[in-house]
């Protein structure tokens, strides 16, 4: 075999090794452990389906998944709306490229602080005696503090939208920047109004960006546990939180089974997104 025929394999080797060691192997381990048995202090190698059985047949699991899907759907819709809005403004209303880049960087500034800090900062703001309630009360808009602001689904969704919108902005901004401006002019010449240009030209061409952003947001929200725990004050559950609890109680096989189920569901969601939009064709 000549070197030139070997070359592609050699080029693929580093990535293959990295993925095998850090992706395939851990997932295989989790898959294996998910069939093991356990008691309150130990896990032992076995091949049982009880972990899956207990997970799938428990109404807690179903409620938790429904709750997680609810968060995912709401957060996805909001981040898409806000993300597209911001990206559209940056791409079409800011004329100079320099200014576009500057403003885009401004969008990323919150990301210079840690995820946890950005989330926790909401707590004193939204609390019963927090800034928002105090301000509203001193302005006379309300005379009782609004309780739903913190430790509620509202708080969870708010924090998630805050944390994840940039994951929508970036890919959508990227695709919008690639749209040939001549197409928009052509549409206008052909008599399309603003709304028609948006729905018939821009959104279809922005689909790959929307799809990539959606994959980010959906996978992040589906796997989240810390935001849900902190912002709901431990009153709501998500799939990730359920797993974290199981791990804390040394129920590794149950957590592994849960992880496998979540992985399959998330892959199905990503698969569905990719069926709607062919990312590779349109990039």
């Amino acid at each position, binding site marked *: 075999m000549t070197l030139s025929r070997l070359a592609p394999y050699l080029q693929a080797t580093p990535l293959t090794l990295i993925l095998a060691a850090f992706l395939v192997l851990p997932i295989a381990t989790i898959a294996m452990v998910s069939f093991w048995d356990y*008691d*309150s*202090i*130990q896990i032992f190698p076995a091949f049982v389906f009880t972990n899956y059985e207990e997970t799938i047949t*428990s109404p*807690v699991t179903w*409620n*938790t998944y429904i*709750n997680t899907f609810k968060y995912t759907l709401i957060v996805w819709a909001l981040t898409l709306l806000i993300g597209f809005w911001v990206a559209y403004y940056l791409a079409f209303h800011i004329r100079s490229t320099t200014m576009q880049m500057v403003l885009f960087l401004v969008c990323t500034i919150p990301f210079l602080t840690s995820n946890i800090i950005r989330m926790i900062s909401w*707590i*004193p703001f939204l*609390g*019963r*005696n*927090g800034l928002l309630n105090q301000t509203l009360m001193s302005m006379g808009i309300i005379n009782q503090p609004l*309780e739903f602001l*913190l*430790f509620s689904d509202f708080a969870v969704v708010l924090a998630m939208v805050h944390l994840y919108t940039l994951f929508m902005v970036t890919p959508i901004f990227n695709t919008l920047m690639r749209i040939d401006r001549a197409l928009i002019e052509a549409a206008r010449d052909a008599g399309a109004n603003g709304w028609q240009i948006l729905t018939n030209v821009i959104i279809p061409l922005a689909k790959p960006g929307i799809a990539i952003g959606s994959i980010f947001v959906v996978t992040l929200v589906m796997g989240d*546990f*810390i935001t849900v*725990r902190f912002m*709901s*004050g*431990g*009153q*709501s*559950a998500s799939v990730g939180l*359920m797993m*974290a*609890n199981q*791990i*804390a*109680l*040394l129920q590794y096989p149950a957590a592994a089974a849960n992880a496998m189920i979540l992985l399959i569901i998330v892959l199905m969601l990503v698969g569905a997104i990719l069926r709607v939009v062919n990312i590779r064709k349109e990039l």
Partner: protein
Amino acid sequence: MTKKTTSKGVSRRQLLKGAAAAGGLAAGAGVVTGFPTIWAQNPITLRQFGTGVSNINAIAEKCKADLGITLQMTALDSDAVSQRVVTQANSFDIADIEYWICKKVFPAGTLQPMDVKKIKYYDDIVPIFTTGKLTPESKIAQGTAPNTVGFVEGPDSKTFAKAPTQWMTLIPTIYNADTFGIRPDLVGRPIKNWKDILDPAFKGKTSILNIPSIGIMDAAMICESAGVIKYGDKGNMTKAEIDTTIDFLIKTKKAGQFRAFWKTFDESVNLMASGEVVIQSMWSPAVAAVRSKGIPCVYQPLEEGYRAWGGGLGMAKHLKGAQLDAAYEYINWYLSGWVGAYLNRQGYYSAVLSTAEKNMTPDEWAFWMLGQPAKADILSPEGKVMYTAGAVRDGGSFKERMGAVACWNSVMDEDRYMVRRWNEFIAA
């Protein structure tokens, strides 16, 4: 959600300096014999981890100064501690765990029992931890009482002994009796019973802790106080009792009685300090932390009694030779008074009271242990004023508090079922 604060990693330079100084001291003062051995000549490091309450840097510093043993401390939450003991047996030398955790993890065989003959102050340890009775007349409380998991039958045994033997699983370090913390300025009524947390006036302003083995005991105290159920043994509920308790909790949660559930010390402090809750399960140093912000907070004694907890030091199975000797030396030092006084000054109780008393002023002792009014300002171990002259601590004397324990934190026979139902409550 594991918070890790590894501290006291002494650099090589500091270590060399310390070793040289201590070596010089030992060589120069050849007459110094016996306790304490200066370990600095042959530096020994003990890796200790445990729940935040007793992983105190000041203790590590004092230990270094007195014994030359470097303590590397890691603070984790209760769940992470149990995991670590069972799954990473070689990652620690000393495990600072609670008695209910001990019941869960000791049978895993990663800890070795200690020979009480090598524990200098064994006979002075508060009898709660040996016979289970504070005074000969007292009744042993429900739950995982420390004496029930305090001893095993032999040096290699994993079976808990019914009565004290020569082999102790944990050397008690720190214990206390818990109730509710309240905001006296916001509750607006006297709080006397565990059921008072269910008062509709506190709707959306209460919290209990979300650590199943502890939370269930608070829940049990509340349910029994409210007349929902009368338990055979709160510390070892039947499935039916667990169901009744959890169903009641779910109903209460759905009615919006709780504001949040907390899992870590600082969460409980923040909930209380911010006024999000006005009455909640709390640990006594958390109350002190709220008060140190200048916010009124009281640790309220309740008629039905306290839920008690206790922790102790366990030795890793792998310890042997010089390290094992050092571990014993460390434990003997721990019980010799300085640490005891330090812990007592935080409002906790220490295992050997006679040595602690010698390290406290008579006024401090009278305030913390006898429940008498302070003659002068009472300072925290860091030197901050905690109580001004004339103040009286919550709950009275040691005997009144530890004598009114209704139950201990516990692991039940139906633990797995309980945890499953508890998760249902949290997810409900």
